[in-house]
């Protein structure tokens, strides 16, 4: 068993924090709180620096100052953005509504036809399958149609789930549960591989124990 310890101090810092986080599984302790504070602080510092250089300067200031003749209209959203910041001043909070109104209004208008296309039309088209009298047709087309219809009935809010209506809704919830179970099982392996990734980091990059 040969070790080939890494000479990079950063790797050991990462190992320290990795183990601090895993200590949370045992119980909450100052090491975990330390790691939590560091990640919040460092993440926020990173975001702030990137925000300043890439966003504020890169996507606002530089385009505005280098090509003012065609980009002058960027002043308007800048003013709206400044109005957004007035949220912090109690007397002027109402100014921020303009920015929110613009964003929400435009965002909703943007989404409306797309939601109909993707969430309604496309889903309906994909479910309009022919009913075939074969095993394949039953297992696939028929089951999908029944599942979608009964699922929709389950989500009805205006009628109580009683009688024949309740039975169909019951079929719907069965479909939903099977679907959820499938999603759950599908992601299990992916989640486990995350853990394997961290273990490899410690064993291979820090300790040099493995050569893969």
């Amino acid at each position: 068993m040969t070790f080939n310890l890494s000479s990079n101090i950063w790797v050991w810092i990462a190992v320290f924090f990795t183990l601090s986080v895993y200590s949370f599984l045992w119980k909450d302790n100052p090491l975990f709180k330390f790691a939590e504070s560091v990640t919040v602080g460092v993440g926020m510092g990173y975001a702030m620096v990137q925000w300043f250089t890439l966003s504020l300067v890169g996507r606002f200031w530089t385009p505005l100052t280098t090509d003012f003749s065609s980009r002058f209209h960027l002043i308007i959203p800048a003013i709206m953005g400044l109005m957004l910041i007035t949220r912090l001043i109690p007397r002027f909070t109402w100014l921020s509504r303009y920015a929110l109104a613009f964003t929400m209004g435009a965002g909703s208008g943007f989404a409306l036809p797309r939601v109909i296309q993707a969430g309604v039309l496309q889903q309906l088209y994909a479910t309009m399958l022919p009913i075939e009298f074969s095993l394949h047709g039953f297992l696939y087309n028929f089951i999908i149609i029944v599942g979608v219809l009964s699922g929709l009935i389950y989500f009805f809010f205006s009628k109580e789930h009683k009688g024949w209506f309740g039975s169909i809704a019951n079929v719907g919830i069965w479909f939903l549960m099977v679907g959820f179970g499938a999603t759950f099982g599908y992601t299990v392996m992916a989640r486990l591989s995350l853990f394997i990734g961290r273990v490899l980091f410690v064993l291979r990059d820090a300790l040099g124990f493995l050569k893969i």
Partner: protein
Amino acid sequence: MFWKKQLPLIIVFMMGLIMTVQYFIPHHVSKWVYVNYVDWAIVIAIFGAFLGYFSFLRVHITRIRKKTSNWVFSIITLASLLIMIVFALIDGKGSDSLFQNMFLYTSAAINATVFSLLAFYISSASYRAFRAHSAQAVALLLAAVIMMLGRVPIGDKISFWSAWGIPSINTVSQWILNSPNMAAKRAIALGVGLGSLLMTLKIILGIERTYLGN
């Protein structure tokens, strides 16, 4: 009052109408509207981010001043933030700079580790799911188990019944994915689609005003 109440709602309605109509118009004027909307939204978001940073600093500084519980960790948080800014100033942001290394080996490493905690949590969630107390929970459990086994080669190996023509676990898991799971996804997507439609409509018409505050 008009400036505080009515005008924002008028703006919402106008913008909503413009962007809805824009979707159907291919003319380059319409494209110009779309491109500018995206640029404007980005600039507003840039200023909005400032709001977040400011309130973050305020929260932690207040905690340190008032010495509420765990105020020591607020010092650590602010110190880490300051260190990142100093590193960026002295060594730049390039690859292998202090700034990048600090981020990669502390925050990114911690985040990846927290993400990997999911491996443990999913095990405890599975254990809890196994204590199924209703028929439907059993269905969820069964589907999950079949899926888990069906995604790895071992599923095929233990399917001794496949020699008699009965489909193996892998085949069944494929069917679950393509059939009942698909149906469930579509039912939820259709419902969510309608809900989104109604919500965007309510926002455009001014019926839904939560986001504007009081």
